[in-house]
């Protein structure tokens, strides 16, 4: 028995020793490399780094959101041979993201892209603790004035979704479209609404049935959602999930049409692929990194909620190639609508816009601003589903 007591004592001593040792080495490291921190306080936030970090919520080859991020990150690496590109996959949308970003900072990163909507809290924490580092967040919105070393950026995803809605509205025979989404966040709501309005612009009888999975990537839940939609007679399915493979696969197997999202996944649906909205982040990432490394971030365009769309001409969301079943007439209609969206009077949400209860939410002739669309909290007329999900 008693040797266990000795063991416990030994163990406690060992713990104390390890703690002391770590403290010493930690202190040693801190004093040994004073250049990194002191140099940064002289320069502007985000300058003087040797690396750029990207954190992603899912795997980098998900046929979706994270794959688009990863590929663009690699392009940034090619344009900046002096900067090491640090990428981290499967970073949860909780406090562990803070540690991962700080590990990137310890490896020389002065610029960090926190690329999932739910990374905003962690990004804010890191930006507040590291004034010399710039953290930009993809897709969420900062309320009030952002910190001097923080901003968000995104494209107007709903514009290409409106166009894809046109293709869906022409393709459907049951007049029922399906939408599998993760969470009812404003950008998703705007996408669903734009998709329905695009479809209704060519097919007044169409409706869009929505199902949420409560996860950016849960193949089991996605399969359940797609099955429920298909059994309702839906014959075109699109989605707002990070990993898109499962839903596309289920849709193709059922002989229904697919509208893709995030990435061109037409290889997964050779029969049913219509089109899709696809990210091309590389040009925007390049602009952001240029801006930050030149020391121009503070007070600049990216030190805010930066949004681009067809009107600014630099939407990182582009339309994927069309599938074989899309007719020339439909393609022409889409091209026309795309040109219209780029003009002053063009928007998926030109009033009158009615909500699900038939109440007018955008008055006749009014065009909501990008900011207003970013704050959407209702489904439009023709969408089946409850936001309370």
């Amino acid at each position, binding site marked *: 028995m008693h040797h266990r007591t000795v063991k416990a004592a030994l163990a406690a001593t060992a713990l104390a020793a390890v703690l002391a040792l770590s403290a010493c080495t930690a202190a040693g490291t801190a004093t040994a490399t004073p250049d990194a921190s002191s140099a940064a306080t002289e320069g502007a936030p985000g300058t003087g780094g040797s690396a750029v970090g990207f954190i992603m919520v899912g795997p980098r080859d998900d046929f979706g959101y994270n794959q688009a991020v990863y590929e663009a990150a690699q392009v940034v690496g090619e344009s900046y041979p002096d900067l090491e590109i640090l990428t981290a996959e499967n970073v949860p949308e909780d406090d562990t993201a803070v540690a991962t970003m700080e590990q990137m900072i310890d490896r020389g990163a002065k610029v960090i892209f926190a690329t999932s909507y739910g990374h905003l809290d962690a990004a804010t924490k890191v930006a507040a603790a590291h004034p010399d580092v710039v953290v930009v967040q993809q897709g969420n919105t900062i309320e009030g004035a952002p910190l001097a070393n923080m901003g968000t950026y995104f494209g107007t995803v709903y514009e290409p979704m409106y166009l894809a809605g046109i293709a869906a509205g022409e393709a459907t025979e049951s007049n029922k479209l399906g939408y599998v989404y993760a969470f009812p966040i404003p950008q998703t709501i705007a996408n669903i609404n734009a998709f329905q309005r695009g479809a209704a612009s060519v097919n007044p009888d169409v409706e869009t049935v929505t199902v949420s999975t409560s996860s950016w990537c849960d193949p089991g839940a996605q399969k359940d959602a797609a099955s429920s939609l298909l059994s309702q007679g839906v014959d075109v399915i699109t989605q707002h999930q990070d990993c898109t493979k499962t839903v596309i696969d289920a849709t193709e197997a059922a002989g229904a049409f697919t509208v893709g999202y995030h990435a061109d996944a037409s290889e997964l649906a050779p029969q049913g692929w219509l089109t899709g909205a696809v990210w091309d982040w590389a040009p925007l990432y390049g602009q952001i990194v240029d801006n930050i490394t030149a020391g121009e971030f503070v007070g600049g365009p990216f030190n805010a909620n930066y949004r681009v769309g067809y009107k600014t001409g630099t939407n990182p969301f582009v339309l994927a190639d069309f599938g074989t079943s899309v007719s020339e007439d439909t393609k022409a209609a889409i091209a026309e609508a795309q040109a219209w969206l780029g003009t002053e009077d063009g928007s998926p949400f030109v009033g009158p816009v009615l909500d699900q209860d038939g109440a007018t939410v955008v008055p006749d002739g009014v065009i909501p601003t990008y900011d207003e669309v970013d*704050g959407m909290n209702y489904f439009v007329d023709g969408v089946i589903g409850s936001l309370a999900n």
Partner: protein
Amino acid sequence: MSAPVIVKPPEDSPSDRAVAPRQAQALRIGAGVLRWVLAILGAMVIFSILISFQGANPLEVFVDMWASTFQRPRSLTEILIRMAPITLAALAVVLPARAGMMNVGGEGQVIVGAVGAAGVGLAFDQTLPGGLVMVLMAGGAVVAGAAWAGIAALLRLVFNVNEAVTTLLLNFVALDLLLFLIYQPWRESPTAQPSSREVAVGAQLPTLGSTGVTIGIVVALVATLALGWALARTRWGFKLGVVGGNAEAARRAALPVTALLLSALLVGGALAGLAGWIELSAVELKLRPGFGMQIGYIGFLASWLARHRPLPVLIAAFVLAALSVAADSLQLDSGLPAATINILTSLLLIAVLGWTTMKGRKP
């Protein structure tokens, strides 16, 4: 399996210190240390082989992991922050184990503890002073964690249903309770990802000076020392050991077995609840869908690594926390998935569980 009928004294009682000759004792300790060293080496070798299949150089991986985990300015802070809830979740297993019970429900008790703390915080953090709210939240966590373990205790003591089964099932109920709350009643905004409102700044756990380490680790240390003292030096601790050794004998010795079992589970649940409070008020600040994921199970394993003894729990929790900090290095330095760290962690556990004790121990 058959336990001796005699009533055992507490394990570290000084009475048998003089019995064993010193040499034999030294030999046994030497053999024990050797087993541990071999177990750890074995785990590292197998891990090396596995990652080299994926093209990684094991030596570089270990060097990078060491540097990343122990030599960055922030690494000790990160380890201590992660270690605090793991320690408390492990103590939640240690205590019932002393009374011969198995608490597999730390996971749920941590979650419910955080839910209790959040409930109190959401109710009062806009009206009462921050320091008071912080203490009230801790109280809410303790009550909630104890109550959750109390359900299992009730089922065992009244309906005779085993606590290992019920605590495990209650983990899933706890997770669904958390999700239910943050998807509707406690949701900060209907058009955001589900989460509760952030704990008010004043009610968050303060840090120790400028270190970034929150007082969570102090709470964990104090709880460990207090539990160690209580088990070794109080009548309560002694009686728990007796019940754990042989409840029948304990009953014959007129010990209040039911009350003792109940107290062990309730205090265990309260400790896990505290872990949830610390994770909420010091780390996450909001309840989110993945809240506290695996802290309970990792604590369970920490308790086994430590052979259900309070002080060694600190080492086990430190090692497990350090391993989780090392995960980022695998990804950032070696290009391996971060979750690969689970291989090393589990091999270590398997080696320790299977190969550091003599065969024939009580399972």
